[in-house]
């Protein structure tokens, strides 16, 4: 027995040594400061001491290595560019913005811990990954701590009170409302003269179900017919049945496919390999060529910005050039939401005079058309997700996406 107590004590002492010499984590509050501050080698004082003069820390718990990395990584890079631009111009209310990030690898435990660590480092704003399910562990840490918690590109209506209850008032996303995006896809497709559709939602994420649900809803309002709905879930192998299921579902003018890489590659590749050339429409999650076959044709997606050199907005083109020069060439148009997020946060901090979570939340809820690099940002008390944006409609021609038109939805679609 005594031997084990010695071992446990030794372990406790070792762990204490680790935590107290860690210089990457200044103490968050005075309790912790008692035990850790004394030995901290860091030259940064505890943030509470100079909350008003030091930089405003924006903590980002993002996925930089797993399946959301193609979306999170560029958004983070664009956010950094926007921050640099703001800081060069003198910062916000005289304070500089500072971005710290931790890779979550989409692991729920690491996501939670990343948020805990960032908040302990003194983050005044928390940024989370671009899917509400994966973001949840971090979102809860942020809003429970009373900190405004935002995502660059979550695309459902779930990033807010609907999902997180009263504390969810502090949660916002700069992605597009799925109901809006599904509606714009349906309206564009109907304008091509198509009338029958097969709908393929990925049940892994609420966003996919919602976009496909909105497509169906608007499609039927317009007078189109849904021939069949064939669901599956990413990562569990069920996508391999989709090409055959779609083929067996009968003739249709268009397939609405709501999923993301890697399973989108399997689905689209499989459909084309079976000789099925039916046009396919997809939300922003189909953006990019990193998943597609080199000769893909007839695949259309909606996105925030074209990264294929033909975006109609010169500021967007300039931002892409800046990202290229920094070596973080964006794979999809979603990066722009990272910059729009920083611009909106700066506007909010300036307007409310600080980073108080509730004050910022009220400011955001009142926004109706704040001009940013990613178009007009609007939220409401019910909707904490951007709606009414102008989408870039892009269609693959021989492996390369080509800009077709700018298009807004007439209104978000109603879904069950």
């Amino acid at each position, binding site marked *: 027995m005594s031997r084990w107590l010695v071992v446990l004590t030794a372990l406790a002492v070792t762990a204490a040594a680790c935590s107290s010499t860690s210089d990457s984590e200044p103490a968050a509050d005075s309790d912790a400061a008692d035990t850790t501050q004394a030995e901290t080698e860091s030259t940064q004082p505890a943030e509470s001491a100079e909350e008003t003069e030091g930089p405003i820390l924006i903590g980002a718990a993002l996925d930089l290595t797993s399946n959301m990395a193609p979306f999170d990584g560029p958004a983070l890079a664009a956010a950094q560019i926007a921050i640099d631009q703001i800081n060069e111009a003198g910062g916000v209310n005289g304070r500089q913005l500072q971005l710290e990030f931790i890779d979550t690898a989409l692991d729920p*435990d690491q996501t939670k811990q990343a948020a805990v660590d960032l908040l302990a480092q003194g983050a005044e704003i928390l940024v989370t990954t671009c899917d509400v399910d994966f973001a949840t562990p971090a979102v809860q840490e942020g809003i429970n701590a009373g900190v405004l918690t935002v995502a660059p590109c979550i695309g459902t209506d779930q990033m807010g009170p609907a999902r997180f209850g009263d504390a969810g008032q502090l949660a916002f996303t700069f992605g597009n409302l799925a109901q809006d995006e599904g509606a714009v896809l349906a309206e564009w497709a109907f304008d091509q003269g198509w009338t029958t559709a097969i709908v393929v939602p990925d049940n892994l994420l609420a966003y996919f179900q919602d976009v496909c649900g909105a497509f169906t809803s608007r499609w039927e309002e317009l007078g189109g017919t849904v021939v069949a709905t064939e669901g599956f879930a990413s990562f569990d192998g069920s996508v391999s049945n989709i090409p055959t299921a779609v083929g067996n579902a009968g003739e249709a003018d268009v397939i609405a496919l709501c999923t993301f890489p890697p399973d989108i590659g399997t689905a689209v590749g499989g459909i084309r390999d079976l000789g099925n050339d039916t046009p396919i429409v997809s939300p922003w999650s189909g953006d990019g060529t990193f998943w597609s076959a080199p000769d893909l044709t007839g695949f259309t997606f909606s996105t925030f910005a074209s990264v294929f050199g033909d975006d109609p907005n010169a500021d967007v083109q300039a931002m892409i050039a800046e990202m290229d020069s920094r070596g973080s060439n964006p794979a999809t148009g979603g990066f722009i939401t990272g910059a729009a997020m920083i611009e909106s946060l700066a506007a909010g901090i300036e307007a409310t005079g600080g980073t108080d979570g509730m004050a910022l939340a009220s400011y955001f809820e009142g926004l109706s058309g704040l001009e940013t690099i990613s178009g007009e940002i609007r939220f409401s008390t019910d909707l904490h997700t951007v709606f009414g944006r102008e989408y870039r409609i892009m269609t693959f021609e021989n492996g390369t996406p080509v800009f077709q038109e700018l298009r807004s939805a007439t209104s978000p679609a109603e879904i069950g």
Partner: protein
Amino acid sequence: MRVQERFSELSGLLLVILAVALGQLLFSDTIGPQFQLAMVTTSIAVSLHTFSGNSGVISFGHISFVAVGAFSAGLMSLAPEQKSNIFPELFPLIKDQQIGNLWSLALAAALGAIFAAIVGIPLMRLNGLAAGIATLAVLGMTRNVLRNWTSIGPGAKTLPGISETTGAVQATVGLLLTVAVGLAYQQSRFGRRLRATREDPAASQSIGISIYGERLLAFVISGGLGGFAGGLYVHYLGSITTEQVYLELTFLTLAMVVLGGLGSMWGAVLGGLLISGFSSFLIEAQKGLGLLGREIKIPSGSRDILIGILMVVILLVRPDGLSKGGELRIRSRRSADS
């Protein structure tokens, strides 16, 4: 077993757990939760031990009961308004009701036990190895049902917004309760009969012990404790997906029980606490940490490899695990002399 011996086994574990619980007071807010996670994970290991340690049948499906407990406690703690917004397909009974923290833990334990009984009635008839493999099938089925049946749960999505009631107190009390129930069973006539079947199935039958009956009872108790630990877990996490109660947790808790020493409660507790601590340490090291004045950073993903290596090394040096299958006993000086 004399009362004194019973108490000496319990008191040793009690002291160690309380020492760990107090240990977290030494740490900052970012490390403190790691202690709570360690205690919750150890509760799961203890619940697994209650069946596998006493019966000698490795259950690969134990996390099924943890999952049932976690999802039931989590779903029933969530406010009805949020449930209708996020999961409109839920059955009305689940969607419209909400219960408090303690009731949700009780519900988790009850459903864990009931599920274990349903599964155990056919499975416990199989012999040891076949039963172990069949439990793996149960794990797969449970996960697939939870992932696809959106009337009873969040499906493949994250269940959010669960009150984070498992802090330092609930984690400590929860672990102590799990250990106390597990140990009481282990020391009871039922537990001792089951251990006899583990030692020698044929001989145990010759003295009238029904292997099926004893295993089933242990399976149900273990399932109940597993469900309870799942409830603790979900109230620690605050949100959960099916993947968090699937293969990774299965192997982690099996590693704890085997490395600690299969067959003893002390082994399950020791293995649970040590592996959790080591795992947290490695996660920090992956992010980079200062250790005694030096900066250490290990490549991300090396945690699992290092835990694997640690297991191999310990099992080579001590094939019966750290506890060698024995219990921790504290003897007073007087009884040690006598």
